[in-house]
């Protein structure tokens, strides 16, 4: 499983198997919602997830 660090609290974040780019995950330490911005070259990158916008939904 791929590992990286939380951009908010720097804790180690382990990405579950089958994680996809653009997937939303949570940091287990600070509970910040994070988005997987890249999985290229087995070097995952994370950013804080975008806030819910007015037109979001189903």
């Amino acid at each position, binding site marked *: 499983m791929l590992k990286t660090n939380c951009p908010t609290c720097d804790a180690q974040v382990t990405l579950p198997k*089958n994680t*996809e*780019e*653009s*997937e*939303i995950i949570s940091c287990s330490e600070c509970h910040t919602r994070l*988005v997987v911005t890249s999985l290229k070259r087995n070097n995952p990158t994370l950013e804080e*997830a*975008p806030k*819910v*916008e*007015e*037109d*979001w*939904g*189903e």
Partner: protein
Amino acid sequence: MITIGLLHSTIRGDEKLIIEAAKKRDVKIKLIDVREEIFNRKTYRCDFDVALERCVSTVKGKHATYFYESLNIPVINNSSVTTICEDKFVTSLMLQKANVPTPDFAMVFNADQAQQAIKQIGGFPTVIKPPLGSWGRLLAKVNDIDALETILEHKDVLGSPHQKSFYIQKYIKKPGRDIRSFVIDGVTICAIYRDSPHWITNTARGGVATNCPVTKELSKISKKASDAVGGGILSMDVFETEEGLQINEINHTTEFKNSEKPTGVSISGAIIDYCIKTAKNL
């Protein structure tokens, strides 16, 4: 092999289930983050057979849908269904026009008309909703004229243009729950109860999902509502009233991740199967 273009922005648990369901079938999924695309008809090259629109952003999803349709790629759901279902007022109009039982409603643009409309649909309490919106956001149960004036003034001063169109709906007293039926190609494949002590029962707001038997009445009203808006992959929010079932709202990019377990039905599998069927009928 059929390739489905899965149009998305953020990947939710629902999209993960769809990807997993595709892996179990003879079908390829191409993930397309619409935020990364350049929708230029003169340069765009399409390498999939059918598109499944699953964007969490309604606006981006609709624009992507129109774009792929312009390239003669079928999109599920199509732009006509999307345009109806994204707007609660338009949905209600289509339901009422097709004689599908639905709570009384009206649209107004100022406070004086709002007072008259509320009288027409049965008085207080009433519900005011933004025509565009989801997950129970900014719904207001309005109990009296004072609350009405306050809410409308706030919307008028603070709101975007969409918030200045006041969709007013008769308040329906629910038995602590409502029903969500999942309807694909007019067939109700399963349904859940959404239990909540709060009058807003969305699972996104804490409503608890349990299996709801698919009765003849539920199948019939769901089919009729599906036909009224153009079919495809839909979910219906259904109220149980003394007069029978009523369709409240219809979702065109339905979330279902909390519903597969209680119903025991692979909604994601049914979605993929419908995409395959659509692609084979081209």
